[in-house]
């Protein structure tokens, strides 16, 4: 906008278009106006449902029109503004301008809550005054917190590794089946992915682990009447709950790994066979090194999922009988006990635990790749 316009030039040439302040102004006003209309439009849905006759379908339609139409208009106005700048500036700014709304939303929905949670973790239960490190002292002195942390560690050690291993085995053997057999067996193993965590936990809790042998399959097979989900000896109940998550995630691991295995060039396999390698050697020395990237991706995805594991424990034991994990403990502290400070401190600990694991995994992967 600072560049001086050249009004006597009739044709705008490529590479050196001048600034057009009027158009820039109208673009800017458009952005503000659209933003204002959008904001108030959405607020009116919440504050004045009577304007829409309390009709939910009508309100949903208005929301869709406002959302899609509004963002299209918003981007159009941004575009008008940017293009009216001198070309050098506009070409440099365009990618940022289009990323800006997304970044603003992420900042609002992700960064702000993160910062505020860390802030609240130093405050009292009603988040009205700072209490220093009291919350951290309280949770670290609480044996229940260490139980939860130990359980999270157990989940982390077992679930991702077993999920990847089972997924790999299934993918490998499904690869050897006939086309039809592969299709059906894979669909079957993928099926649990489509079940919600709560439903899966209920299915396993009632149909497999129930103490009544007439209902619980496990007791029926073993001829016992054990209340499996409450048996915390050797963390048995935690392991039984891990099986549920493994059962649900194996399908996901299998699908990704299977496509990776199919992408392994046949030539490398043939070459190995010609050199007299057996199937075992082919798998470990030829296939696995070539799909390492996918294995790591799957592994990290499951690791992140396990860090957040909540539903299975909440549904089956609510953290009782030594099965508590950090996410359930956070929920209890915040909603049952109403201690916002401690709850924040617990999730901050969780937040601090995730990055080192990820960094370590990525490092290990890079080292492997550089070799």
């Amino acid at each position: 906008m600072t560049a001086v316009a050249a009004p006597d030039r009739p044709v705008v040439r490529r590479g050196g278009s001048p600034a057009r302040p009027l158009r820039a102004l109208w673009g800017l006003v458009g952005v503000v106006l659209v933003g204002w209309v959008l904001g108030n439009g959405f607020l009116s849905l919440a504050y004045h449902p009577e304007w829409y006759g309390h009709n939910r379908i009508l309100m949903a339609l208005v929301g869709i029109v406002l959302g899609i139409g509004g963002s299209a208009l918003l981007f159009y106005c941004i575009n008008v503004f940017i293009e009216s700048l001198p070309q050098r500036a506009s070409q440099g700014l365009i990618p940022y301008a289009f990323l800006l709304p997304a970044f603003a939303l992420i900042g609002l929905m992700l960064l702000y809550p993160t910062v505020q949670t860390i802030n609240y973790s130093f405050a009292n239960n009603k988040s009205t005054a700072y209490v220093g490190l009291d919350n951290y002292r309280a949770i670290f002195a609480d044996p229940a917190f260490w139980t939860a942390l130990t359980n999270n560690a157990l989940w982390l050690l077992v679930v991702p590794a077993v999920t990847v291993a089972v997924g790999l085995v299934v993918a490998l053997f499904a690869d050897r089946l006939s086309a039809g057999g592969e299709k059906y067996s894979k669909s079957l193993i993928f099926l649990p992915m489509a079940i919600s965590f709560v439903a899966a936990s209920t299915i396993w809790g009632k149909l497999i682990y129930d103490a009544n042998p007439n209902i619980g399959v496990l007791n029926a097979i073993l001829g016992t009447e054990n209340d499996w989900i409450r048996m915390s000896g050797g963390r048995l109940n935690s392991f039984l709950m891990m099986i549920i998550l493994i059962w649900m995630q194996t399908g996901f691991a299998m699908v990704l790994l299977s496509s990776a295995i199919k992408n392994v060039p046949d030539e490398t396999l043939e070459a190995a066979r010609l050199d007299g390698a057996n199937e075992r050697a082919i798998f470990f020395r030829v296939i696995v090194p070539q799909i390492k990237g996918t294995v790591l991706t799957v592994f990290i995805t499951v690791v992140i999922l396990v860090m957040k594991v909540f539903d299975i424990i909440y549904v089956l034991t609510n953290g009782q009988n030594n099965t508590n994990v950090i996410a359930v403990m956070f929920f209890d502290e915040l909603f049952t006990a109403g201690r916002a400070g401690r709850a924040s401190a617990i999730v901050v600990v969780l937040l601090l635990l995730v990055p080192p694991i990820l960094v370590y995994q990525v490092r290990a992967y890079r080292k492997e790749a550089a070799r």
Partner: protein
Amino acid sequence: MLAGCLQNPNAVGGGGAAGGGSVVDNAETDGDKVVTVMGAFGGAEADAFRESLAEFEAETGIRIEYNPDSDFTNLIRLRTSSGQQPDIAIFPQPGGLLELAEQGYVEPIDTYLDYDELDRTLLPGFLESARLNGRVYGAPMRMAVKSIVWYPKAAYEAGGWNTAPANLDELAEVAAEISATGTPAWCMGWESGQGTGWPGTDWIEELMLRMWGPDVYDDWVTNRIPFNDERVVAAFDALGEMIDAPNNVRGGRSGILSTAFGDAMLPAFADPPGCYLERQGNFVTGFLPEGVQANLDEEVGLFIYPPAAEGEYTGQPMLGGGDLAALMNGNDPDAIEVMRFLTSDRFGGPWASAGGWLSPHSTFDVSLYPDEITRTTAEFAASADVFRYDGSDLMPNAVGAGSFWDGMIEWLQGTKTAEQVTTDIQNSWPVDDSAKDEGDGS
């Protein structure tokens, strides 16, 4: 400077509790003949509630808008903190009511109700549950009672056992006689999903009331005596003795934990019965088999869970609960009018006839109840020497809906002794951080 990132510690409502002089208010229009009510019960119960108000509405011209929500406990907090509290809220537990009363959002009932009149007709002990710093903030509009022992009428009478044991010793004799026949005497189930363990807390409360009396009970639920007091441990031991007596409780310790509380009494109606006695609240009839429910008076017998034969306290206690109505808009004469009606013994006729509802007033017309069982239950409640609110509902949430439940499970499984469990619960009792609220940081 950083304190700007925290929430305003002085954001209280009208200041009814804090200021004393002013009246609590909300954002609703006053005197517009519309009163908004929020509560936890929905479905058929909400219909019966509305039906019970129909006559009152026609008489006074006040329209009552009742909005139920199953997550009432959290929603009322949320609405209040955003300035959208209803005119009247009906709290299923006193804890949430007192929390909001402390923050100054609830009008004390002595400013608009005739306290003495209420106190005369209500069961003794009810208003105490809603008392904070000397003032009462809510009045009951529904009662639940828990000190009732149920049995399958035909089978039990065929056995010829005592149908009205006068004290715990006589009841233990009955149980011993039943156990001697080879069938366990008691049905018991503590499993309740996320709430597993709560039926166990009821047992401890019942025993605390009977062994040590209402005064110790009050000290215990308010933590004036520590949770790991030897008297509490003694109550655990008494319950343990009952559970561990050979063939006394169906399924033993592990069976109790894996049986859902609603299913616990089903074996009693099998042929031959798998157990005979269950101590549970008046809501248990809703879990009985359909055939039994259709013919409750013929199929089901009941007696009051009796007092102790000797010791510290021998009066008849009644453990129970109730929904407490509280006024959140002291400026609205219509809301006050509704509160007067809701908390009086005139309220509830149609709901009583529909079943599943008990009036907390001893003067309520019992002929309005649908069956003999309900009438007997109401009589038991009215005839009790002392009524006490379910202790776990009065304790802070972290204990009453947290560590107490967990403790019951650990104790029942035998992973921890009564001393260890009660000490754990005592340690989980929230420390009042109000001092910190006013301290540093601001």
